[in-house]
């Protein structure tokens, strides 16, 4: 990025965390929206919920069957006709039990598989929607947000929404089935014993929910602390030379220990919360079981209920224990889906500021004339004044325009307006008389290319990087562009040539090589307007002049704009615009401006090598 943009980045960054303040109503509408999305896969969602109901029904029959089996045995012991019948019934019960278990297993499989499948299908659609949105959102949005936050939304928040169906919604059905019908069955069998058997449910459900919500809050805090730790380590390792140069290892260890301590103490706290909770839940569960055994035992002795009934109560409790303990996870899943959904939907609902007007025609390049008419511009989120004021100039096909000026004078901004990275505040920019806001973005950006100072290289081969804008290009064209950008010889020197992978995870190129690659990449588009935004700063003067002469061949077909600090990069231009505080303050050829003796001349004197007599000029100015 150029210095113009670095000034902007200082302002506080917008964030997608507005959702924190959202109330219940908002949360509910988000959950509704996610639910509706889940039912876009009606078949799978229906199968999941149906299977949940059936599986839990089978689940509920198991304790009954077990109780029956015990009773049958007891009755059979008494012998006689009833005993014989009971003995026969035993076999039936066993077979029923086997059948119920098998069916429960199968329906649980259906339930789990389809509820996950719904989530994965939702995840797939959301991923695409996110990707598309991120690609389309305009520069001003991307300026205002930290890329890390955006990645969090696209990864973690999306995950929270995706998990909603299986971890929150389906569980509601499961739990209401088990607890509701189970409670009915128990209480209708024996009121007191039923209540006792269920007595652990409210406590465990409440504890588990409260704990999960607390763990969630501390989890976010822990992530924050861990990211500080990560940063300390990463900066230390990346800047290890600075650390060693200042003999600051002790200082760095202190930094590490502070960050590490803060994370480890919270981690311990979290262990404490979790453990206190699980032990309390287990205790309360077993306490209820003890009560059931006690009261139930007395009832068995007094002949009110059978041993089988008592067994079915106890079995039922063991079955219910797990889902009730996981109630907290369900509550947590709802909370997570609601906050994650809020952020995710906020991103997906954003208006794309810069887009095609309805029915916009394609750009038609005839004369190839670029025209700025009274252009004014201020960055949307900055309180500062206009960055550009009343900029007017015209550039014809074949012309080269140089733009120069002190840092922050608006040079780069001017360059960014032509491909509509931002829209002008006032005035207009036209190409052959067509306002660039009235034509399709696609046709505009194919004709206007800006070569950035620090352009992003993709982690792929050099060939793919050069052909980025025209992936179907012939190999020979790629090589020609690379030759023009003075990159070809370097590439041929690499062991794997054009197949060499560059970018973040590939071979690292020097600043100058990266710039040459991005020039080659831009040339591939055959633009009608080509803008160099300080994009030769890291290329040595001689190579730059070779690039310039290579491009002279095509220069007749296009408008060339050169933004640069180094005057030698633009001295040859047909016209030079000197900018200051967002205005064009001087304009003319190099010779004219030197003769005029204004600001351009002062800059020139600063840059050319001072003679032996004036050797201190630069230091005393």
């Amino acid at each position, binding site marked *: 990025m150029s210095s113009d943009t670095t000034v902007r980045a200082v302002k506080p960054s917008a964030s997608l965390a507005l959702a924190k303040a959202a109330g219940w109503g908002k949360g509910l509408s988000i959950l509704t929206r996610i639910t509706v999305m889940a039912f876009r896969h009606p078949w799978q969602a229906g199968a999941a919920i149906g299977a949940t109901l059936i599986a839990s029904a089978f689940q509920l029959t198991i304790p009954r069957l077990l109780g029956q089996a015990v009773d049958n045995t007891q009755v059979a012991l008494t012998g006689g006709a009833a005993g014989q019948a009971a003995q026969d019934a035993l076999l039936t019960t066993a077979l029923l039990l086997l059948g119920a278990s098998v069916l429960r297993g199968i329906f*649980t499989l259906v339930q789990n598989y389809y509820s996950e499948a719904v989530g994965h299908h939702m995840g797939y659609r959301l991923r695409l929607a996110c990707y598309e949105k991120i690609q389309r959102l305009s520069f001003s949005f991307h300026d205002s947000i930290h890329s890390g936050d955006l990645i969090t939304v696209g990864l973690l928040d999306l995950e929270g929404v995706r998990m909603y169906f299986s971890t929150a919604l389906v569980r509601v059905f499961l739990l209401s089935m088990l607890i509701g019908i189970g409670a009915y069955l128990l209480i209708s069998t024996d009121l007191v014993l039923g209540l006792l058997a269920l007595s652990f449910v409210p406590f465990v459900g409440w504890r588990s929910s409260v704990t999960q919500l607390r763990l969630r809050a501390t989890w976010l805090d822990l992530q924050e602390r861990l990211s500080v730790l990560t940063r300390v380590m990463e900066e230390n390792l990346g800047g290890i030379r600075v650390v060693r140069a200042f*003999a600051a290892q002790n200082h760095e260890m202190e930094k590490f220990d502070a960050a590490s301590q803060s994370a480890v103490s919270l981690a311990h706290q979290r*262990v404490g919360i979790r453990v206190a909770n699980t032990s309390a839940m287990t205790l309360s569960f077993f306490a209820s079981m003890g009560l059931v055994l006690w009261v139930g035992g007395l009832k*068995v002795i007094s002949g009110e209920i059978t041993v089988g009934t008592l067994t079915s109560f106890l079995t039922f409790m063991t079955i219910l224990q797990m889902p009730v303990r996981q109630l907290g996870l369900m509550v947590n899943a709802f909370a997570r889906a609601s906050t994650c959904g809020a952020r995710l939907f906020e991103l997906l609902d954003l208006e794309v500021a810069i887009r095609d007007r309805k029915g916009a025609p394609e750009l038609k390049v005839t004369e190839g004339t670029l025209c700025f008419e009274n252009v004014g511009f201020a960055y949307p989120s900055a309180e500062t004044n206009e960055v550009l004021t009343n900029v007017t100039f015209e550039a014809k096909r074949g012309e080269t325009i140089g733009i120069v000026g002190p840092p922050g004078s608006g040079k780069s901004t001017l360059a960014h307006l032509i491909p509509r990275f931002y829209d002008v505040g006032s005035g207009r920019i036209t190409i052959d008389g067509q306002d660039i806001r009235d034509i399709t973005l696609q046709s505009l950006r194919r004709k206007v290319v800006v070569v950035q100072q620090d352009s992003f290289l993709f982690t792929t081969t050099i060939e793919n990087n050069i052909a980025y804008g025209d992936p179907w290009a012939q190999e020979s064209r790629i090589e020609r562009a690379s030759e023009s950008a003075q990159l070809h010889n370097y590439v041929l020197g690499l062991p794997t040539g054009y197949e060499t992978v560059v970018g973040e995870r590939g071979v690292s190129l020097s600043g100058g090589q990266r710039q040459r690659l991005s020039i080659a990449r831009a040339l591939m588009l055959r633009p009608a307007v080509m803008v160099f935004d300080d994009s030769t700063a890291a290329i040595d003067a001689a190579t730059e002049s070779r690039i310039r002469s290579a491009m002279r061949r095509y220069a007749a077909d296009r408008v060339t704009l050169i933004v640069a600090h180094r005057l030698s990069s633009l001295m040859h231009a047909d016209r030079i615009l000197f900018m200051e505080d967002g205005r064009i303050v001087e304009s003319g050829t190099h010779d004219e401006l030197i003769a005029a003796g204004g600001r351009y001349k002062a800059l020139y004197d600063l840059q050319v090598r001072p003679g032996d007599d004036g050797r201190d000029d630069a230091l005393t100015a």
Partner: protein
Amino acid sequence: MSEELETERPDIREDGRRPPRAVVGSHRIEEEIFGKVFDSNIIRRIWAFVNPYRTKIYLAVAAVLAFTAMQLIIPLIIRYAIDNGMQPGNASHTVLYWCIAGFAAAILVNFVASYAQETLVGGVAEDVLFDIRRAMFSHLQRVSLSWMDKTEVGRLMSRLQGDVNSMQEFLETSVLSVGDITLLFGIVIVMLTLDFKLGLLTLSALPVLFIVRIFWLPRARKSFMAAHETNSIANGALAEAIHGVRAVQSMDRERINFALYDDKARANLMTHLSAARYAQVMVPIVDSLTGLAMALVIVVGGARVLNQALDVGVMVAFLFYIQRFFDPIRSLTLQYSVMQRAMASGQRLTEVLDVPVDIQDAPDAKTLSPDMDGSVEFRDVVFGYNPKHPVLKHVSFKVNPGETVALVGPTGSGKSSCMSLIHRFYDVQQGEVLVGGHDVRDLTQDSLGRQIAMVLQEPYLFTGTVFDNIRYHMKDASREKVIEAAKAVGAHDFIMRLPEGYDSILGQRGGNLSLGQRQLISFARALVADAKILVLDEATANIDSYTEMLIQKALVKLLEGRTGLVIAHRLATIREADRIIVLQNGELIESGNHAALMKNDKLYSKLYNLNYSSFDDIPEDVIEEAATEQAT
């Protein structure tokens, strides 16, 4: 609804053209995730970290055993209550109460044991995790720079995070698996004791499950890994889209990228569905086996009860145990993967911990006094990162106290190596480097570092306030001193224009400042360090002329009253130096001030006369030409 896509997926494949030269996202081949199941060497190394906490670990194991015992006893109590308290004919309140009392005692023990076990294991695992990480980080502070240069920061970070985390998982689960094993054996023993035949029959379901798991595990794991991998591919592509969005938009690649991303997202969907199938297929198998075991207990057990060979309570206890005994098998087979992963991670961790530390203080190292004269001398120094290919060949020179010397020469001539040697980043192979008259190998690294301030070519700043960056490790530097330094180098004005002045937080690596501004802050940092000797590698990147002017002024200030060694690129800096040393291919070829060298008519005057404003602007071939011309 906005999750409806605005763009139709364009067909980029089936339009008769050959496939485009285009990909989204990159994929690094993952490191080996699974290692040997058991590697005694690695276990020993890890144990060294656990050892300080061994009392806690022993206690935790004891608690796990107690906990498991209670899991076994509870069904037995129920059984006893049924058989001896509730049977028609010999019902007994006393027995029932005793059973309830026993039950209460058991659940209290259970409570204490589970609390103790989880607290201890969780706490120790966290502590060990941080200890391992600290040991590695601290080791990395001392290993040689040449090793650090060869190693990607990202790789080290994945050691410090991913690998350390999988050790934590391993620690937590291994204590728990002690419990699982005990529970499994306990259930088997109790069942066989209660009724040998019925027990044997019921347990026959166990090997079936084992065999099924053994066949299932490798396939399932493959499928889980595929899901994991496609996930990280898709996430990588999303991250790329975010970081490269400006390039994507300016090259009009949105449509193609969308189609390519769709492929990755779809692959992710498919592998996840397949992984879900693998994960869920075990459910009906386990459930059916459970059902089968229960049915067996009812039919066979029931028959034995009728033959008076078995009590009803035993049958009930069996039914309870059956519901528990598949759990340990499930977690034990999972533990297998955890072990393998931990061994692979442990292997990588020990590799980092075992990187030798080349440069250490000599046992009798002296402290370099701040009162030393500040001279620097190279005596017949031979040095190469690879000893077979020396970068410096018999270089000798002396920089007198207070003198500024410019090091000049083409890329690869050995300038940067000279700079590193003064600070003893590396040790020389021959000859010696003297600072203040002492061989740097006889001094403590810490005291040496405090007397040498270094400014690197690429200014590197840390996240934090401007103030903290300028004073860096000089914790006693006052605010006045920091501001004074900033003023001296001309950074004060732009710092005051930042929203919070000196308390403004700099983004990662000072991202919200321009290169020139970062340079000035690193100058101020060197000034605060207030060392006798300043070693500076001038920035080569093109900085706008206005900031450039400030930097030149600051440089003069910085060198005032110090011994200066500057790797100079700008002619202005070079001419200002008291002396110029010209290096070529690791040899010192000339030295003297500007006027003397111009008369010398060697490489320096040749380069100077080429009329470039900076030596870096001279194309390499021209330098080569001048150099060979001079050599002949």
